[in-house]
């Protein structure tokens, strides 16, 4: 019972839109089954996990720290930046080409949920490892596993300052002059799990921060070429701690693991994650029934992300023909490249993102990028999309009839007013600009 409406929804709402060559053909057959196939058997693209860059950039960094010559500092900066831009390019190219586009959308969603930012330049070289070891393996697994992997990853430990948080009553605090830092503990409670109105207090934040003391990095640089997780038992605050009314006995690294597992399966967490995912994929205002179905699936499986994702896919609201979401900026760029059949170089990807004010892995704060339509379609942002679309359209070689391309890409979604605009365009490049600016293409 597949229609071309459903094919377009599967492509655009749950992926990066139709490709110029394939049109709607990618989801020929049963779009829903094909989406569920993807989450049943997600693949980790091997070519993206290359670690060469990370060792190199930290080698230069530690050399530059020991010996602050201009040349070494320049090399370290360059290696870090190359590593970051190379990763961004690989990632965006993969989104454009993959045969599992829904998996990429899920990865992007979870990676944004657990935002780390290059505002702290030290995380630049760690992004690739973060995404491939802490996020990707878990997108259809247990949320607790993802949460623990994230909280113990150097990128997050550095971004939210836990790498330097040590128990006030420990040897570490006395000799290294480092004490408690509550940043990570607070943001896990507030942003990653139960949410700010879950009724916890400052005492809970401090108790949880104490449980997380010692979750830090290998500090002996000769042991590792780049930052790696290490639990420092002698920096871990001793004694029992009470979080949300439950007391955890002193148990080293296992204290925070137990607390994270509890938070990951908390009903408040279920509600927040279900709401957030529905708002990301389906609508700024998803129905309470959709949220409830997703939340229940999550809880029944003890924090099961596969079940929650599947519940969203199987809900009728997810297949409403109304295009309720505005594309995010990165998705707008990838879907434009697909629609135009454009093969970007690293330069194109990076400057496109920059000129549309979207810097990957540089969200303004630990909340990550917004899921609101009003954020992505703000007045200034829309004009920039038009300016960018105009640049992209003139770079397309070969002859295309914008109206025919519109029919091929949008299928039944091509509206009369868009068809009229495409037919009346004064040039091919203006027509292609209009195609990228059409409501059918701005929305999903």
């Amino acid at each position: 019972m597949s229609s071309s409406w459903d094919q377009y929804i599967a492509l655009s709402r749950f992926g990066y839109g139709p490709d110029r060559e394939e049109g709607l053909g990618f989801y020929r057959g049963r779009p829903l089954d094909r989406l569920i196939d993807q989450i049943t058997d997600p693949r980790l693209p091997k070519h993206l996990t290359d670690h060469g860059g990370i060792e190199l950039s930290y080698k230069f960094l530690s050399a530059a720290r020991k010996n602050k010559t201009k040349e070494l500092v320049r090399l370290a900066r360059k290696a870090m930046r190359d590593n970051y831009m190379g990763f961004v390019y690989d990632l965006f190219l993969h989104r454009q080409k993959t045969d599992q586009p829904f998996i990429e959308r899920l990865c992007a969603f979870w990676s944004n949920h657990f935002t780390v930012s290059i505002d702290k330049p030290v995380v630049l070289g760690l992004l690739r490892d973060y995404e491939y070891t802490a996020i990707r393996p878990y997108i259809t697994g247990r949320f607790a596993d993802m949460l623990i992997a994230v909280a113990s990853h150097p990128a997050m430990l550095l971004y939210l300052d836990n790498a330097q948080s040590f128990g006030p009553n420990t040897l570490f605090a006395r000799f290294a002059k480092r004490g408690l830092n509550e940043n990570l503990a607070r943001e896990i409670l507030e942003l990653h799990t139960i949410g700010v109105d879950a009724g916890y207090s400052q005492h809970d934040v401090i108790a949880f921060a104490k449980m997380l003391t010692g979750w830090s990095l290998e500090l002996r640089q000769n042991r590792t070429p780049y930052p790696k997780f290490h639990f420092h038992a002698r920096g871990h605050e001793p004694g029992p701690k009470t979080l949300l009314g439950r007391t955890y006995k002193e148990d080293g690294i296992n204290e925070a693991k137990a607390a994270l597992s509890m938070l990951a399966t908390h009903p408040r967490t279920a509600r927040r994650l279900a709401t957030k995912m529905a708002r990301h994929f389906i609508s700024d205002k998803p129905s309470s029934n959709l949220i409830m179905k997703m939340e229940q699936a999550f809880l029944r499986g003890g924090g099961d992300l596969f079940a929650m994702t599947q519940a969203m896919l199987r809900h009728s609201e997810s297949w409403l023909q109304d295009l309720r979401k505005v594309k995010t900026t990165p998705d707008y760029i990838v879907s434009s490249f697909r629609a135009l059949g454009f093969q970007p170089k690293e330069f194109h990807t990076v400057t496109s993102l920059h000129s549309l004010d979207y810097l990957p892995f540089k969200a303004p704060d630990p909340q990550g990028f917004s899921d609101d339509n009003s954020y992505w379609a703000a007045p200034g942002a829309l004009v920039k999309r038009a300016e960018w679309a105009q640049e992209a359209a003139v770079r397309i070689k070969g002859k295309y009839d914008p109206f025919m391309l519109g029919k091929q890409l949008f299928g039944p979604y091509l509206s009369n007013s868009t068809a009229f605009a495409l037919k009346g365009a004064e040039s091919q490049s203006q027509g292609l600009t209009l195609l990228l600016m059409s409501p059918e293409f701005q929305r999903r």
Partner: protein
Amino acid sequence: MPEYEISRRNFLKGSLCACIAPAFLMGYPGLSFADVPTDKRLVLVFLRGGLDSLSAVVPYADPGYRLVRGKLAVSQKDLLDADGFFAFHNKMKPLHELYQKKELAVIHAVATPYRERSHFDAQDLLENGTAKPNGTDSGWLNRAIQVMGGRSGESALGLSVGPSRQAVLRGDASVTSWSPSYLRDVNEDLISRIARMYEHDELLHRNLGIAQENMGIADTKGKVGRGDRAFIPAMEAAAKFLVRQDGPRIAVVDLGGWDTHVNQNGRLSNLLGILSEGITKFRLKTPDDIWNKTIVYVVSEFGRTVRPNGSNGTDHGTAGMSMVIGGRIQGGRVISQWPGLSENKLFQRRDLMPTTDLRAVSKTLLGVHFGLSPGAIGRDILPGTSGLAPVDLF
């Protein structure tokens, strides 16, 4: 004229009919602004992340200051004295000069009614103007615009500078927005064609119309700052909008990055320098007669812990500071009922104790600067503030 050209007025009204605009209207964006109900201006500068006020306007003569701040205490040689008790961080030299000209007042130990420590709730509460996070959907500056007579679909009295609209401007009164672009302009014809495709899409149609209003007003191309420094051209653009006779009256500009949990001294000096440069740029671009009708109001969602944390930084605190800057204020003063820094004087034994409600400052600006009635302020704009004494700023 091609039949798809639409006048800007009609974009704003969300009209579905593609009216043909008189040719003289096109290309004169100024004409589309209606009479503006006030000639007073306000720029809200929002320092997001929680400014460490004890490092910006430093209570250096408080006997507890060096003791409690330890390594984070600003050294004497980096201070510019204000009144024998407080001193400005030397990166704020231009602001110190405004202070000496009596055009800048500091309100210290000030806080919103928020007493928890989440950035996002604290910002939301400051922006919605109630005493609760998510207390209402609209922002207090939008409601102030409505009280002044700005309405949905009419000329925008509000201006959001930056990539997305700040919550303090959210609401029914129309608000325009501007952010810098690195790209080649699109022409009027292309925008009209796009607008026509959006006739049945309320959100896209409205926002494109707003964007079109702004094209050409603030041309700061080639001067786009990167990262935090983007604040400086943003302030310049705000000035260009606000000096227009028929332009917006209330602008909001963000400067983020104040959440200094780790090794804060370097980052903080950098940001204080950028803040000062941006405000200086705004002042330079504002002619004196307009400057006398303008207030720059600097706020942050909360202060930071009085003691350093374990990483030479500070964690989320409670009271902080605010600044009010303008040509016609009684400046040159640090207004504060200083609570002191000894442990028993701190809020929850960790944060600077709030002694002034930030809404009292906001209320004073609305009442004295804009001349809005106490009833409207206490009922519609900042509910629950009728009992707050105004702050002696004018």
